[in-house]
């Protein structure tokens, strides 16, 4: 590819060495190069949160991060949250138990945004949860059951 640059990005624990166009967005790199299609695109402008992943443990919206910015860094996507169906992350359990999703399109980003919250604040209040997911749009649920899901996750994680 003309003008492409090498990158080395560790995604969900596996190191990937590829050549990318400098303008390649991280979300496209994850979806197209690595087949991590759980990362969704909702607005291409950082405003909806569907593409939220963790970059070095912090939630970022991968539609406005360049793949080259992730060079040498660690990325976690929804696919990397649980090793298998029997070992779900507490947030995945919470979303399932509390009906925190309907169409499921915002869900991976919503879970990754909520993970940032619980990483920082293991026992958030409802207001803190609503504030933390304010950068993520869900058009189906009306958010209440997402709040319930995050609270449930906090309880599950706290009990573990």
């Amino acid at each position: 590819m003309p003008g492409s640059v090498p990158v080395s990005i560790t995604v969900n624990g596996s190191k990937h060495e590829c050549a990318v166009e400098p303008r390649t967005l991280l979300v496209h790199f994850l979806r197209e190069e690595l087949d991590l299609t759980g990362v969704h695109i909702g607005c291409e402008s950082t405003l909806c949160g569907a593409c939220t992943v963790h970059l070095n443990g912090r939630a970022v919206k991968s539609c406005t991060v360049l793949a080259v910015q992730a060079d040498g860094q660690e990325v976690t996507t929804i696919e990397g949250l649980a090793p298998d169906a029997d070992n779900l992350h507490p947030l995945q359990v919470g979303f399932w138990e509390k009906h925190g999703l309907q169409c499921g399109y915002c869900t991976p980003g919503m879970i990754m945004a909520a993970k940032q919250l619980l990483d920082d604040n293991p026992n958030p209040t409802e207001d803190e949860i609503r504030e933390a997911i304010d950068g993520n749009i869900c058009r189906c649920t009306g958010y209440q059951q997402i709040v319930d899901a995050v609270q449930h996750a906090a309880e599950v994680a706290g009990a573990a």
Partner: protein
Amino acid sequence: MVAFRPNSVGKAIKRREDPRLIRGLGTYTDDVKLPGMTYAAFVRSDFPAGAIRSIDTTAAADHPGVVAVYTYADMDGQVGPSPVGAEMPGMGKADHPLLADGRVLHVGQPVAVVVAETPYAARDASSLVEVDIEPREAVVDVEAAMAPNAPKVYEELDSNICIQIPVPNPEADKLFEQADQTLSMRLLNQRVAPFPMEGRAICAHWEEGPGKLTIWTSNQAPHFVKQQVAMCLRIPEIRIRAIAPEVGGGFGAKIPTYPEDPLLCWVSRELRRPVKWSETRTENLLGMTHGRGHVEKIEVAFQNDGRVLALKGQTISELGAWRSFYGPFIALSTHTMSCGCYDIKAVAWETFAVYTNTMATEAYRGAGRPEAAYIIERVMDEVAAATGLDPVAVRRRNFVDKDAFPHTTASGAVYDSGDYEKTLDRMIELVGYDDAREAQRQARDDGRLVGIGVAAFTEVCGIGPSGGTAPHQRMGTWESATVRVEPSGNVTVYTGVSPHGQGQETAFAQMVSDAFGVGLDDVVVVHGDTDQVQHGVGTFGSRGIAVGGAALHMALTKVHAKATRIAAHHLDAPVDQIDYEDGEFTVAGTDRKLTFRQVAEMAHLWNVAVPGEEPGLEAVARFEPPGTTFPFGAHLCQVEVDPESGQIEIQRYVAVDDFGVVINPMLADGQRIGGVVQGIGQAMWEEVQYDDGGQLLSGTLMDYAVPRAKHFPRMVLDNTVTPTDVNPLGAKGIGELGTIGSTPCVVNAIVDALRPLGITNIDMPAKPERVWQAIQAAGAAQ
């Protein structure tokens, strides 16, 4: 019809859909990857109206990685016109091309499509297509478009008025003369964007060998897509497979087959390669159908005791630049539902649907009913204000009595069942209404602008009897289900509905579990694939359970009856001596029994033939509903307005709804809360805006405000149960109810907060700026 013991139905079972979705393993259309894939990007009109002087695709075609560039000239005569287009007698109509055919009618209309080896190359090259347009004056405002001398969207038509349907009523005229009082209002139901989180996405794959086209499309009704694409490409429908894989929300805007659908199918056939396209959010706001867009005028005749006698209304519906799948029909349902929960003696109405140089409008969560509920619920509050009565008292005075069902309204709707007092009573009890009003009085005494809004509404669900279906739809509005039992006793359900978040994989598994005594894990529900599923219709009009579930119930009943006959033969007993409970067939009064799984094995093994029966255990059923259902609800919202900024805080929201029998209350709550929030979005923030020249001003998330988590308090929900006899489940439908109730409820609360200032209406969206201006104007007037 058999009633199965509800072991699972009625319980809050967590969803069967979720394990894949919470791990990012769902397959949405853009996730489909095929060898040899190409990628499309559209060149869209920057002008709302004009003649195309020239299109130069040379630079785009020469761009590295570009496979092809197509304009109307390339496809003329081979494909199209656009598959959209509701038909009605006397309608002003014109064909709509898949790509602009020498003229453009709205900003965002596809003019050319660029196909390339990568999405980036397609997008790059699309910016190299030079489209020279001679602009002409656009008509944007719907009322201006009705003027005799207005610029015409379609020069070949007599006017911009697509339909004009007057329903005069001399009885209404008489009641207006007799009434103690009358009032009139002009109500705007602004245009909004459906904004599913997944925009439109299409992957079309023509396989030259078998002569077969497969289209994955983010759509609510793939069987419609198959028919529409067949008509548009002029190939037999038996060569088309339409798949709606995971669909990331629809809300009505994914009912239609869009011009892009058949166009990309044609491109794939031309190239003999698969082609994929996912719209950007800006394309979504430009080119996905919008909702609402009504101007309504309403006159009300009422008595001093709050009794509403008659309505005279007018609906002016913005169709946009072309007839969408249901657009012109939606305008008419506002009149049909104009009476709401109330026993109004006479209604006169006139409905217009009008072309403008804007994106087409289509069904959006409620589709005509929210407009009707908005009118009558705003009216009830103004009648309360005019008579000095409490808004709740006025509603009670006008309710259709619970013993009066089925009830035919003055606007011709036939309500199946209802008990509006019961639901309202429950809401009043939950809220502590008198205390809430007292607290409001104290707040007002302290100078605070606190408002309480109520809405008591009904709507129409379970769409619906097929009579009147437009021929272009090719399918009525019945629904289908196949129940296929495997030799093991595991069950596959093939449903014609096409859920996209509603949770029918779970609700239907619950029904199967109750019918056959199998576990939820032993059931798979297949949907959204026309090669797997028998003919069906789709998910819209709150019909998934009320019509699709009813079809499933019929199929389960058929299979159950056959299983009973097979069991009887094997147990050497007459059929009427067979008792059935929880998966076991027992000869009455004995311990001789067979499990459902044993019967399933016998039905397939067939080493003992059952006389008069075919082997196997499978049934298909189609349910044609004899009528529609009318769920209802009573909502209350409390808001406080900051007089300094016009900011509105939603302090409380209580919803008591009645949607008949419930399959899964957790899923029902999800539909309701989501619907309420979506309706509040329209009341408070959302608005598709075009400027006077026809340019879209709300083309990104910076300009189009959708509800976010911190806008809302925790909502309080409850429900009453008034079954329907329109379907064997007694279920009414739930998908649109929240949206229909919440919009007028919130606006009533805002107006209630501002009424002490002399303000009697706020047009939606009640943005802080608009509220602040109203407060300033009211202050200046005093």
